[in-house]
């Protein structure tokens, strides 16, 4: 056939076939191989949400559900997806790409897609081999919402983003998002009734949680007012080093923040609780299985080398956040 059509003719024939396949993929007339999704926590019907809020709103960029940030926007966890509302001009919901994904897409053709409750929207983009970029951003059907990708610092940081360019309170419900290598989307297709359905089943929640816990690990007491976070020993008279078991090695040394009441206890009786005044990372790097933190108490309240447990102090809402987000 190549000899009959000539090289250019054969190239055009291949393009015609690929275009036809792409259209048929949307309508599931053919079995389409789904490409790997390069985003984490991409299914918003049951998202990983270690911070535990039902709604996240911020003017400055702040993390919401795992791996996604809100900027000048509000993200509410709905029954079928994330409801996004822009609270100011350029409100956005963004996903910083991991180092491995950034390297994999450099110079490649990628397709961005989002499945909303009103339909599927996608765009294909050629990532430059170097230099910053801001992908052309097609409107996703509703009130100046767009999807795009952009980079800063010569592609040291790359983001997948859903953004609203106007300060319009026009909420959209996002069911799923996908970034994939290739020139067409494989996120979803239309069934015989014209309904959009995901090509892949929803991801295994446990696996998504593990992936997200490389970036953020939250100790919560799960309504156990005296839950133990870890054990250790007095490091001096006002501080104990506490070892925390972690499920997976974190991406980088995490920052540590905490809320609620925590205490050090040597005797496990409530009256033995020594109130914790501050929790900090022991910045000696993180291992595959454990992290160390400093738990501080009032001066001279800790006995050097005695064993202690760090536990919630009658506070079922107490939590510690290890943050190694990008």
């Amino acid at each position, binding site marked *: 056939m190549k000899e009959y059509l000539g090289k250019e003719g054969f190239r055009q024939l291949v393009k015609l076939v690929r275009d036809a396949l792409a259209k048929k993929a949307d309508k599931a007339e053919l079995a389409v191989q789904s490409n790997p999704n390069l985003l984490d926590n991409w299914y918003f019907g049951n998202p990983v949400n270690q911070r535990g809020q039902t709604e996240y709103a*911020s003017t*400055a*960029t*702040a993390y919401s559900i795992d791996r996604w940030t809100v*900027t*000048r926007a509000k993200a509410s966890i709905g029954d079928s997806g994330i409801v996004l509302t822009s609270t100011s001009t*350029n409100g956005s919901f963004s996903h*910083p790409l991991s180092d491995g994904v950034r390297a994999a897409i450099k110079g490649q053709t990628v397709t961005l897609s989002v499945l909303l409750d009103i339909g599927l929207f996608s765009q294909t983009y050629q990532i430059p081999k170097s230099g910053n970029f*801001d992908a052309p951003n097609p409107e996703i059907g509703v009130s100046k919402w767009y999807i795009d990708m*952009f980079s*800063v610092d010569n592609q040291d*940081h790359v*983001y997948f983003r859903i*953004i609203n*360019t106007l300060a319009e309170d026009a909420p959209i419900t996002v069911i799923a998002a996908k970034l994939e290598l290739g020139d067409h989307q494989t996120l979803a297709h239309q069934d015989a009734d014209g309904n959009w359905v995901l090509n892949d089943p929803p991801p295994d929640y446990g696996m998504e949680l593990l992936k997200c816990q490389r970036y953020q690990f939250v100790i919560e007491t799960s309504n156990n007012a005296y839950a133990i976070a870890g054990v250790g020993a007095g*490091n*001096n*008279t006002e*501080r104990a080093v506490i070892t925390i078991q972690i499920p997976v090695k974190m991406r*980088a*040394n*995490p*920052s540590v*923040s905490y809320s609620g009441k925590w205490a050090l206890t040597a005797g496990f009786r409530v009256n033995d609780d020594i109130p914790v005044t501050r929790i900090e*990372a022991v*910045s*000696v*790097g993180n291992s595959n299985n454990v992290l160390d933190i400093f738990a501080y108490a009032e001066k*001279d309240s800790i*006995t*050097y*080398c*005695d064993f202690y447990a760090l536990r919630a102090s009658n506070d079922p809402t107490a939590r510690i*956040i290890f*943050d*190694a*987000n*990008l």
Partner: protein
Amino acid sequence: MDYDYYNKHYLKAREDGAIVDAWSDGPFAGRSTEGYIQFGQGGYQLRLVVDGVQTEENPPIFEEHGIPIYKYVDGEIKRRTAEEVQADIDRIPPPPPSPMEQLRADVDFISIMANIEL
């Protein structure tokens, strides 16, 4: 479109310049900056530039005794000298005796006073 990418980085230094705290307002949005100096801006996590070299994210700022590793001098972050660190280590008071050590000392004292061989 603006990106809201850059976060502000803060540090607190002692009178001798030793850095005793440092953080990024990425993970610590809304934290009070009273007593802190904004020494730079950058990514979500804290990095320091020490003697012109960028550190890992959230680098250690204390060694194993809890002594500061870096100092802030004339707007630059530098590594403290070994002598400066050792001087701080030498100033750490010895820990008080543990209850068991105190009890042993008391028993020994009483046995000596009572001329009892243990």
